[in-house]
């Protein structure tokens, strides 16, 4: 299967989970190049599981994922063509931030140490962490670790990045700063961003296109521009996801 022109990620007939109990069945969607695409859904809807299949860490029950320039991510070999930020940042805890960024450069490029250092410094500067290359991840705040993770995801200049809940566990100001960073990278570098989130503020600011997963449906409940889905979706579950304030909650005195 070849990816259509203008498409960064194509998913066809994907079923994930366990053979006795599939979590998501027959998913098909595509991510346009240069867009910010979100995988949305409530807790337990399968967002993170789908994320792991998109980046080739798990084999699907049926169907397949195709990434432009990579093919099936499960079979991908050689220099990585996309970057990944994990929910817990995934930075190697016993390595400094600079060493974390230098690692893929050392493995996949023929740059001299000084040149690698320059790339690391520039990438860290891009995410506002210039001067932190000698810090261990444990010496950084949660938001800084996330930004460090994004810097490492970008260090090999990919055209596509996958971000798993970048704003999770961060205070609103730090989360907004991270959103700004993602937006800047998307606009300035033309980066395609696939992110998993349920932060409504981030969705409102960043996302142009999304799929909303549902545990009961075992699939996609809605797809499109979240701003349109918020007001125009005929499905009350979709409106409730985007406007939780409309849900009636018992008054607690």
């Amino acid at each position, binding site marked *: 299967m070849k990816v259509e022109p203008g498409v960064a990620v194509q998913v066809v007939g994907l079923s994930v989970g366990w053979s006795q109990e599939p979590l998501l069945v027959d998913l098909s969607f595509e991510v346009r190049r240069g867009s910010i695409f979100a995988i949305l859904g409530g807790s337990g809807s399968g967002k993170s599981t789908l994320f792991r299949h998109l980046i080739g860490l798990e084999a699907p029950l049926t169907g397949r994922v195709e990434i432009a320039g990579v093919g099936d991510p499960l079979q991908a070999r050689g220099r990585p063509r996309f970057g990944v930020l994990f929910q817990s940042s*995934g930075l190697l*805890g016993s390595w400094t931030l600079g060493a974390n960024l230098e690692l*893929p450069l050392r493995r996949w490029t023929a740059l001299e140490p000084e040149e690698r250092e320059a790339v690391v410094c520039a990438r860290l500067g891009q995410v506002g962490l210039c001067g932190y290359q000698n810090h261990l991840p444990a010496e950084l705040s949660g938001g800084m670790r996330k930004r460090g993770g994004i810097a490492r995801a970008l260090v090999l200049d990919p055209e596509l990045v996958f971000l798993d809940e970048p704003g999770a566990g961060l205070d609103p100001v730090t989360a907004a700063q991270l959103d700004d960073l993602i937006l800047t990278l998307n606009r300035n570098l033309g980066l395609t961003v696939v992110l998993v989130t349920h932060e409504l503020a981030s969705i409102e600011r960043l996302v142009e296109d999304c799929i909303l997963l549902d545990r009961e449906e075992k699939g996609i409940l809605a797809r499109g521009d979240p701003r349109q889905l918020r007001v125009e979706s005929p499905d009350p579950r979709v409106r409730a996801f985007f406007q939780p304030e409309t849900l009636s909650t018992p008054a607690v005195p």
Partner: protein
Amino acid sequence: MEGVFRIACRESQGEAEVLFLEGRLGLEDLPWLRRELGGLPPPGDRVLDLGGLGVLEAGAAAVLLRWQAEAAAAGRRLLWRGGPPPVRGILDLHEGLPDPRALRPAPCRRGMLDTLGRATLQLVRDCGEILAFTGALTRAVLRTLRRPSEMQWRGIGGLVNRAGMDALPIVLLINFLIGMIMSFQSAVQLLKFGATVYVADIVSLSMARELGPFMVAVIVAGRSGAGFAAELGTMKVQEEIDALRTLGFDPYTFLVLPRILALAFVVPLLTVLAVAVGTLGGMVTAVARLDMAPAAWWNEVHSTMSGWDLCGGLIKALVFGATIGSVACMRGLATRGGAEGVGRSTTSTVVTILFLLVLLDAVITALFFQFEIGM
């Protein structure tokens, strides 16, 4: 209104007993209220008048509803009336929640057959895990042989330092003491036959063939085996292994192989030193307690011990080192869950390694005996 909880007064209204509650009803007031309710003459309804209640804590509301359900099951009624909106709100919030007794997990009674079946399935899963690990490790070895630059060679030095140099003091001390103990114990017996000179033979051969490699392996398993399993387990639960994969690194080439190689190098090296200090410890006892001259001791050792004895011990040490590294990495990479999962992996690593060390020791000794190597 929000003062200390109390029953302001009681009234009999028809067949019902009405209790007028006042103040703040919290969890600590419930045992007393239960006694008061139970102490009223049965049968008949109990009615709680909540008009004077200032605050009803959420936990107390849940218990009141539970009492209501229990009373209904016993053919009686517990009712309430009145109450300010905040108090009614708390009760309404808990109304309609499922009975917690219905949510209790069903008692798990497993028969012997069921337990046996589960154990068999677990064994099959474990075997699958071992096969998958062996396959991935073989692939990593072949890949490294084809392209040695893919290996994290620079990391091996640090691992050797951690597993070897840091363990050196404890290895030397323990083996010195073992040598002393061996010497003393065998001297007690050999004295009866006037054959104390053979203490040197017993101590040196035991240290070279058995105790040296085994004791070093046990120490390395406890220190580095558990450490590697915990390290890789933590990396797994913190998604560091997944991150390595997405950066194009094979965890087996990057993490597992260097650790196995480091231990396969360190354990024989430590064994040589362990044999030397163990023999020295034996000599110290012999000199101090048996009046044996050091030269006589070393002459006896020299005439008894062949190169094959030491080689046999080193072969064992090599196998032990590789086994410790493999089991530790396999358990570490198989970690699931959070901190508890890391703890489980570490424990299981040490237990598995200790069992395998004894098993391998028996197998290798039998093979040496069969092929008359160093015998």
